[in-house]
């Protein structure tokens, strides 16, 4: 009866023999490592330079070694080694120890000392778990929620500080307020004016084409004036200021946070709400309405200019019609939004500044967030105002 040998065992045996032959050939190719496979033991011979430069080749050679009951690892031919080499050695030593008996021979005392040093300082590293899709969504939802809560707290603090300040008006910091009103107001005149002029022109050009079809040229005045004063003036100005002053507030306060200036202020009893936030909020609530008034005028002038170019409407005709159609109501309804926009922009700018953590990168992130948030909030509040005005039929 023929002896029965399981096919897998047979193949495994052949494979091992083949591998052993390969590894002997490997001596030629790999100057660092070769091994001999015996029935129950495996002998590993290390040689050459076990250094960082050769780590990859070493690792490739090591991971091919099959496991056996006993491993004899001969280090006597290692000429040079560094901590990376010893680390690699210790990694595979641990791995072999899991299911074999290991004997290390031919090592020098230097190698042993290095091994001990590395072992001593070894700490188990827990690799961060990879996050799944749902977990990511969950985490960012929580982040948003935490952010909203923090902002609500900030607004609460701000209102209580403002209330306190109104009770003790002596503490209002007029010098800071005028400084910030100048910085965010007067110095923004040119860019706000230019933007408003262009927007007025664009509205007039667009309207002119449509109105000319009906021969209703004169209505261009209604279109430009009312839309400018009620909607576009306040909104365009607020968006420009959100990009200009909102970002500046975030960056200023953020930089102070990083250099611990805010912590220093707190320890001196200078409440940042009174010294940093409220002056900026009040300053913007003063300067934004003024800027909006300026933008209204320049925007209408832009429309007037375009109407003359496109429709040949004279300035006298334009102003006459302007007196007829532009109720003061429209101006006031537009102006009513100004303090709200100013508050939103300044509060978000300051809040984002305080959110800056201890690294410079977060200044960039928070400044971006500040501008994006405040522009969005300006538009959202504008929509809210439109709904309210429509509901009241004004």
């Amino acid at each position, binding site marked *: 009866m023929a002896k029965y040998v399981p096919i897998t065992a047979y193949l495994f045996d052949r494979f091992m023999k083949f591998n052993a032959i390969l590894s002997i050939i490997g001596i030629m190719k790999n100057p660092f490592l070769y091994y001999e496979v015996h029935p129950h033991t495996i002998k590993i011979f290390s040689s050459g330079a076990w250094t960082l430069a050769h780590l990859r080749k070493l690792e490739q050679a090591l991971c091919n070694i099959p496991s056996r009951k006993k491993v004899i690892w001969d280090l006597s031919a290692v000429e040079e080694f560094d901590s990376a080499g010893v680390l690699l050695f210790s990694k595979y030593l641990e791995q072999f120890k899991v299911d074999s008996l290991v004997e290390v021979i031919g090592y020098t005392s230097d190698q042993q000392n290095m091994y001990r040093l590395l072992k001593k300082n070894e700490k188990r590293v827990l690799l961060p778990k990879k996050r799944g899709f749902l977990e990511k969504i969950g985490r960012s939802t929580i982040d948003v929620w935490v952010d909203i809560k923090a902002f609500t707290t900030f607004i609460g603090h701000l209102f209580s500080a403002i209330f306190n300040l109104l009770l003790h008006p002596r503490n209002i910091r007029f010098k800071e307020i005028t400084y910030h009103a100048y910085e965010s107001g007067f110095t923004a005149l040119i860019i706000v004016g230019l933007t408003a002029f262009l927007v007025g022109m664009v509205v007039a050009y667009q309207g002119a084409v449509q109105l000319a079809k009906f021969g209703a040229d004169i209505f261009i005045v209604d279109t430009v004036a009312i839309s400018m004063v009620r909607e576009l003036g306040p909104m365009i100005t607020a968006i420009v200021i959100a990009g200009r002053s909102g970002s500046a507030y975030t960056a200023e306060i953020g*930089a*102070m946070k990083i*250099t*611990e*200036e805010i*912590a*220093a*202020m*707190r*320890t*001196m*009893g*200078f*409440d940042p709400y009174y010294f940093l936030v409220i002056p900026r909020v009040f300053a913007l609530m003063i300067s934004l309405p003024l800027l909006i008034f300026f933008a209204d005028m320049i925007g209408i002038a832009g429309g007037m200019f375009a109407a003359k170019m496109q429709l040949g409407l004279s300035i006298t005709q334009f102003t006459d019609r302007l007196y007829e159609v532009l109720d003061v109501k429209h101006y006031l309804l537009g102006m009513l939004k100004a303090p709200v926009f100013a508050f939103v922009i300044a509060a978000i700018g300051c809040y984002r500044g305080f959110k800056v953590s201890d690294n410079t990168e977060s200044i960039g992130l928070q400044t971006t967030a500040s501008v994006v948030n405040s522009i969005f909030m300006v538009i959202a509040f504008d929509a809210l105002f439109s709904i309210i005005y429509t509901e009241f039929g004004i």
Partner: protein
Amino acid sequence: MSVIQMKEIVTRFGERVVHDGVSLHIESNEIYGILGGSGSGKSVLMKEMIMLMEPDAGEITVLGHTLKKIRYSQAQALRQEWGVLFQFGALFSSMTIAENIEVQLKEYTDISKEMRARLVQSKIALVGLEPYVGSLYPSELSGGMIKRAALARALAMEPKLLFLDEPTSGLDPVGARNFDKLIVELRDLLGITVVMITHDLDSIFSIVDRMAILADKRVVAEGTLKNVLQSQHPFVEEFFKNEYTKQKYLGQLDLKEAADV
């Protein structure tokens, strides 16, 4: 009388526990060191003393006020009774050194302008800076000068209590020793209590009166250098009883002990 007393302080950052029952007390007119490895929560502990952070549990009493129950107006008053030197100075970058020192005087007192200027100049001289430094901005100063200027600012309101966060870090050895001398002088001269976070062995062996060692989330040793050296805790062993320290300082310490006897 204890100037500062901390009882069973617990601080957590999310799941990470930084302090788990830290207790210590700081006496009047002493130089008190807070020592510990990196990440042992020294700075956090100091931030809790100066009301920049609140612990999750435990009680802190500073100059007779229990911080947890303190009212806003009391807190504001307390803040005028101490000075804080931040590790990197934290001078207000938009103001000159003189303005930095002056700002609290201007805000909290009604001293005449001329007198304020004199006070500022005296503080500048006290910390060993040249008079012209007053008109410079923080960005124009060297690291050592910033430390000195920040100390001058911390002293502006004539505090009873001075907090120093690594006062000698980033200074050259000579500058660091001079700074140490300055702190001792100020303590003797003005009768203030000094709380300092430090790693500087020279400071610890020469000027610190009592200290607390933070390790394993609690105070593992508190007291004078001699008391602390009795501790068998691994951090104390490693920090004080390594070859370098033994050679450089412990010989000197034995002599001191002999002199004490």
